[in-house]
């Protein structure tokens, strides 16, 4: 197997994997919300309603695709496409396990381990705005436009705290590479804690997770599509597969963000106090590391759902206020505390 084959296999795998996660997330969200709300949720399509996302997908696939008269035809299609591509691409540099050894060939469970690591995620993440701007503006509808503006302003505002939290991370680890950061988290910290990022950067994690929720447009930050205010926000005019792309993209984003959180703050594939690689064979280790990583992600994915059905949403000015007046100062504080600690420890 040469490099390219491996690369293609990895790409195809992770692509379908994210897609799968996104579909399953649709189901999890529906069933989860239903169970939280004392009802059952979809349970007719397939066992436990597992095929519900499939049905939705088919439905959306075969729904009429049209662009309203006043919409800008190119942009109207471009919006969701941009959004989905961005969502899918961001996962490229995030690991999904440690490494697997087949035929004495070491395969790193990551599409690409690049030296700019999470900066790539941030950069691609900052392109998410285009999905909203282009879609919202292209629909030429007031609700869409307002939703698009809100989405953009919100995404922009919360990108800064996200960046600040990452800055502190990169100070602590001295690297951008997510793989290096993950590898660094083996062992213990201060002798008794798992050597996870969260224990080194508790404040940073707080800032990060709040900003991540905002980036993902989840409750309490789901203003752009605030159903009760702006009908359906930026995708008011969308139906059919274009809408499907937006919805999918959102879940893929969730997955990316969860994976990022796990990689940076929750010890990636490491199990605390246990060094798996010494017990397991190379192949088994690869698979177990993948599973561990995924389970950790699953928790965060579930957290997204869980929080969504618990709290109300912000108002726009409060959202902005939270971002600029609380999170950014907190992020800066975190930055300086980190710098200070490094300064006195080296």
């Amino acid at each position, binding site marked *: 197997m040469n490099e390219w084959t491996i690369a293609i296999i990895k790409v195809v795998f992770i692509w379908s994997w994210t897609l799968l996660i996104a579909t399953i997330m649709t189901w999890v969200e529906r069933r989860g919300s239903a169970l939280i709300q004392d009802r059952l949720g979809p349970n007719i399509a397939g066992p436990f309603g597992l095929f519900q996302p499939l049905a939705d997908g088919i439905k959306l696939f075969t729904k009429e695709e049209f662009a309203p008269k006043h919409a800008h035809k190119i942009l109207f299609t471009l919006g969701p496409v941009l959004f989905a591509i961005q969502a899918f691409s961001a996962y490229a540099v995030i690991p999904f396990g440690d490494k697997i050894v087949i035929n004495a060939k070491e395969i790193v469970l990551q599409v690409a381990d690049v030296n700019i690591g999470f900066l790539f995620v941030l950069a691609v993440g900052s392109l998410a705005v285009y999905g909203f701007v282009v879609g919202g503006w292209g629909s030429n509808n007031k609700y869409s436009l307002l939703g698009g503006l809100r989405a953009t302003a919100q995404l922009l505002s919360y990108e800064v705290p996200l960046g600040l939290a990452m800055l502190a991370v990169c100070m602590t680890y001295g690297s951008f590479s997510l793989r290096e950061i993950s590898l660094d988290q083996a062992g213990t910290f201060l002798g008794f804690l798992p050597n996870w990022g969260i224990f080194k950067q508790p404040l940073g994690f707080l800032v990060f997770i709040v900003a991540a929720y905002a980036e993902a447009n989840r409750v309490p930050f789901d203003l752009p599509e605030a159903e*009760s205010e702006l009908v359906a926000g930026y995708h008011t005019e969308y139906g059919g597969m274009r809408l499907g792309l937006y919805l999918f993209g959102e879940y893929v984003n969730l997955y990316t963000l969860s994976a990022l959180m796990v990689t940076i703050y929750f010890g990636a594939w490491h199990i605390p106090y246990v060094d798996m690689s010494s017990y397991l064979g190379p192949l088994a280790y690869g698979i177990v590391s993948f599973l561990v990583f995924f389970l950790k992600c699953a928790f965060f994915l579930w957290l997204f759902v869980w929080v969504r059905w618990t*709290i109300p949403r912000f108002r726009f000015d409060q959202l902005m206020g939270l971002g600029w007046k609380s999170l950014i100062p907190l992020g800066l504080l975190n930055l300086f505390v980190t710098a200070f600690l490094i300064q006195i420890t080296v």
Partner: protein
Amino acid sequence: MGPVKQRIASEDYVTINVGPSHPAMHGTLRAIAYVSGETVLGTDLEIGYLHRGVEKLGENLTYHQFIPITDRLNYCSAIANNVAYEMAVEKLMGVEVPVKAQLIRIIMTELSRIADHIVLVGILGVDLGAFTPFFYLFIQREEIYEIFEWYNGARLTNTFGRIGGVESDLPEDFETRWHELKKGLEKAIDETDKLLTHNRIWMDRTIGVTPISAEDALSWGFTGPCLRACGVKRDLRKDEPYSLYSQFDFDVPTGKHGDVFDRYMIRMIEMQESMKIIDQAFDLYKQLGPNEPLMAKVPKIIKPPEGEVYHAIESPNGELGFYIKSDGTDKPYRIKIRPPCYMIFQAFDELIQGEMISDLIACLSSLNIIAGELDR
């Protein structure tokens, strides 16, 4: 265009059409909001999308046939409408309703008050993005429906009561059902309270949003919880005690600022007060024998004497009054309904000025505008 547009001289606005088919507009209201950025400069209201000609219809139906129509006014609390109408006709005829019937009416009205407030709180939550309390509360509402259904066979539009009394006795298992419901309700209210009241996001969203002063509220004709939220302690059950309300011990919660939070809290407390009233009423009811009369002696065909009457009760939304003019035939000559939210909704434009788009939704939900009684 309306006076709102004249008022807003600056060109710096965008009109956002909210409704009629808008998730927050409950289907039939329409507000054209003039916004600048996210700030609402004013709103033009358009109502009448659910004007079904009830008043005209009333002139063409007999007194009895009109009872089911009143169900369809404020469909969140249909029973209160029935009672208001029946009491107005009874007042016109000078009929004394038996005690047992009155107690049943009170129990049912208070139940429907709870049901109404449940809808309000639930929808307010949904409109502000908190979906779960809606579901918790609606489970209990379902239980209330169950009681209604076992009482006289319909869940929502009960056609409750007859002129001169009620049509049937409480079912035998009412007591167990009520106790179950009460437990569930207390839990649901408590859970809603936990999920919302102290949550900072909720507080931010509701405290200080669209407040109104007591004077303004009175001038606009506010009644009911919305008026009490401004600090005016006015409740027809206490002030003009009709039926047997003077015998019960309950509190009338009042707010201070008249903002969304107060309106919400008032409803939360009122639900508990209503539960108290039901308990007391049911205690009284139990003392009465099974063969106590349920109906006053009224003729088969109701022909009130010539005259006119206005009678109001405290419906969940506020003062619900019926003006009835009779010309001595079996059909009312003129029926005029005084729905509470009709007067309240007028003030919407004034309430919302200078607030934000999201507040528009919060305010609307907190006023509990029911299109059925708004437009009639």
